[in-house]
């Protein structure tokens, strides 16, 4: 398991700022029943200035999660929440701003360590450890507007849908089971 919050605590200035913001928001306690895990670019230190803080959640009762999210965060600026279906699963997505960070919360039935966002973070972390020079390149490509997965696929010369290709790469190389 990647201890993503711990990585922020010991990371660079912006990561530490993100860490303090998450603690101040108290989201890890308020939503603890949903096993919140920070994913995305901050734990891997490949964020750009305005990257979101992505927090994934496991929720068997989406009504309850929606009600909790509204209760805690609907007062924040740019708050929005949506229920929808992704790959035949009912999910919840919520966004809001707190301090200088945009948060994106995503909840579904699946365990957080089985969710695609988490699996891709594990794969990207592994790739970065094997190829330390990729970090600077990923950030550069992201600053030019490319999404994280597309950056990795470009550097690894993987073609096709970057979100699927990166997962496939992780499976084929044994990074994920």
């Amino acid at each position, binding site marked *: 398991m990647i201890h993503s919050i711990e990585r922020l605590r010991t990371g660079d200035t912006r990561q530490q700022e993100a860490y303090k913001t998450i603690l101040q928001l108290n989201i890890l306690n308020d939503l603890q029943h949903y096993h919140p895990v920070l994913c995305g670019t901050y734990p891997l230190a490949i964020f*750009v*200035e*305005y*990257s979101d803080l*992505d927090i*994934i959640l496991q929720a068997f009762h989406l009504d309850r999660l929606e009600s909790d999210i509204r209760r805690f965060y609907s007062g924040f600026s740019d708050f*929005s929440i949506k229920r*929808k279906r*992704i790959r035949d699963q009912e*999910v919840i*997505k919520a966004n809001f*701003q707190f301090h200088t960070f945009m948060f994106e919360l*995503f909840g*579904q039935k699946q365990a957080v360590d089985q*969710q*695609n*966002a988490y699996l*891709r973070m594990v794969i990207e972390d592994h790739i970065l450890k094997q190829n330390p020079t990729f970090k600077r390149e990923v950030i550069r490509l*992201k*600053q*030019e*507007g*490319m999404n994280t*997965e597309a950056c990795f696929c470009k550097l690894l010369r993987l073609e096709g*849908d970057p*979100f*699927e290709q990166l997962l496939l790469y992780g499976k084929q190389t044994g990074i994920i089971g």
Partner: protein
Amino acid sequence: MKIKTYTSVYEKSWLECRVLAFLDTAYYDNVFRKKEQYDNPAIELVAIKDDRIIGLIDVEYESEPNSVCTGNNNKCGGMIWHLAVHPDYQRQGIAWQLLKKVETIALEKGLAYLEVWTRDDPWVLNWYKRNGFTPIHSYLHVFLGGNQEVMNLASKLPDLQPVQAWAHYTGENEEMIRSAFQRVHRCTGFIKKVIENDSFY
């Protein structure tokens, strides 16, 4: 940095940001002295830092298909008329943030696609391609200046002599146009379907 809806309080800062952002582009002389207003509803967003505009995007959108866009689509779209980032803040993902926000609002408004037209700055064309825009059509913007070039123009009004002009060329003979005129830009139209990207999850 915060992304907000434009209000007229920011007009001066909006104009300054736009003119500085365009200095290094093929639109360097496309200077506005007043912020553009639209006949149709518009999504007008600004990126603000220290109470100063560092990025902007304007999208005029349709209530009736094909009333603003040329996407030849039966669905309503939005035309990006202005997208600019202050030179001091470029390459930090601000344009991407503005576009992302516009796409969220466009989805809520039920727009099917975004359209944009831009001249031939390679980094601008690449930015649109990288951000999921597909080229649909292009033609030439031709600037006429100097005696030799404006010779091609005639005025129907007595004693009115054209000195400068700019024109659209939609014909096939690009070589002829480029050899006859010094300043020629290819203007390319792009569209991007507005769909919610849930691939991350």
